[in-house]
């Protein structure tokens, strides 16, 4: 069963069509990169998957649960790292994670070992009592990733997670998420940075609300062409 299935999805803001007949799937264990320039419709797509907007036409399901008809089951299996920072700066790292766990119905006793486990995995267990304000940009992003994983989701959505981060933090985040894929979590990683799509990833090119390509990165970047050459060619053609 697909971790995420999007079929014939279209969405408009008034007369402006933002997504046009978008269909794709993410399988468990897939590292799928949603590649698109700013304004391609990536954030709108994420907002529709997470039910911040409702789908006008088309269907979205998470592990077979339609997000409109069975939102509870769909959202319970979903972890999200939003493009905007969403941590409470005045609260400690741990308090932020406890809050998130409670939004998934976890008691503090049930949440505590999960929080410690996730913070240990991102190397910030010793900072759990610090206020988020005291962390660096990269550390905050890592905490957001840990938070998205506290309730053990099976599908992870990340919207431009590396924007504004230094090279080291980017690498850490990418490596960590790839490890999660190997553990069986399906990942949809939205970005405009082409080099974040590794050879083993699947790439969906989204441009002006249309899917221009959906294939393994190795197939799209057949030598001598690079992925960037292919992306440029596709988007130029569409323009």
């Amino acid at each position, binding site marked *: 069963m697909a971790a995420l299935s999007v079929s014939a999805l279209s969405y408009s803001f008034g007369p402006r069509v933002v997504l046009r007949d978008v269909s794709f799937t993410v399988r468990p264990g897939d590292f799928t990169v949603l590649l698109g320039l700013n304004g391609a419709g990536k954030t709108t797509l994420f907002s529709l998957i997470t039910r911040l907007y409702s789908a006008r036409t088309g269907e979205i399901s998470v592990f077979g649960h339609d997000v409109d008809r069975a939102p509870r089951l769909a959202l319970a299996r979903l972890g*999200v790292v939003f493009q905007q920072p969403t941590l409470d700066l005045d609260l400690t790292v741990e308090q932020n994670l406890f809050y998130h766990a409670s939004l*998934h119905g976890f008691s503090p006793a049930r949440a505590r070992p999960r929080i410690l486990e996730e913070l240990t995995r991102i190397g910030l267990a010793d900072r759990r009592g610090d206020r988020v304000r005291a962390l660096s940009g990269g550390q905050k992003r890592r905490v957001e990733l840990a938070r998205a994983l506290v309730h053990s989701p099976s599908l992870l959505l990340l919207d431009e997670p590396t924007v504004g981060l230094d090279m080291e933090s980017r690498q850490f985040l990418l490596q960590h998420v790839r490890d999660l894929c190997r553990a069986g*979590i399906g990942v949809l990683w939205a970005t405009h940075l082409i080099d974040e799509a590794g050879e083993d990833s699947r790439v969906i090119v989204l441009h002006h609300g249309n899917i221009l390509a959906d294939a393994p990165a190795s197939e799209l970047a057949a030598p001598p062409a690079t992925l960037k050459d292919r992306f440029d060619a596709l988007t130029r053609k569409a323009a």
Partner: protein
Amino acid sequence: MMDADALHFGAGAYWQCLAGIIRREALRWLHQRGRFISALVRPLVWLVIFAAGFHFVLGVSISPPYRTYIPYEVYIAPGLAGMIQLFNGMQSSLSMVYDREMGSMRTLMVSPFPRWFLLICKLLAGVAVSIVQVYIFLAIAWFWDIKPPITGYIAVFPALVLSGLMLGALGLVLSSFIRQLENFAGVMNFVIFPMFFTSAALYPLWRVQQASLPIYWLSEFNPFTHAVELIRFALYDSFNPVSALVVCGYLVLFMGAAIIGYDPGRGLLARRGGGGE
């Protein structure tokens, strides 16, 4: 990985969600010192300076629930308790709009609990914080000779819950429908001050009626008037059924509108998305 099909949200999970949202609201309130202090100082300034200034100008004759002539400070104390809840209701609901461009609301809304439940939790969390503030205010006011009967402190609790819910729900409606209210100054000018000044908080309505009939009727329909009267009567061991009914009516109205406003695809989220990608 979690088997979501086996996942069931019993009453315990709902309780954890509510407790978590209240805990966060309380922690935020305590950590944001400015908000904490101004919430306490604002009504005290009114009580100590404003009421003292008008002490000899405005006498208040005997009118229910008071059984004797009362000094002006005693009259405005319930109004100031209402003011705490009015500010708090607007602040906690609107914080969802202007706190880091809705980031905290996105986090809340992707919770698998039903959206109406999340909104009610958010509302209850704000009310809990506002009630603590009101009791701190009443404790300090005791030293200014605002001494309602001891039983009044207990009787006022359900009144504060009801008025807090109604004012918080109003804040939710505003945060979901009105795009322009993106800073607190706008809310002060167009919501809080008009509601506060055209209410029974600062002067009894019979006085307003003598001065201006249109403003009197405006005050009668003002939900804040009835929140204040509900608090005033409860604090003095009485019950004002008309105000209780009006506050309940406005609560149902505002809550219904807020649930529509936060429905995906309608209200705030869809319209805000217009500016996004």
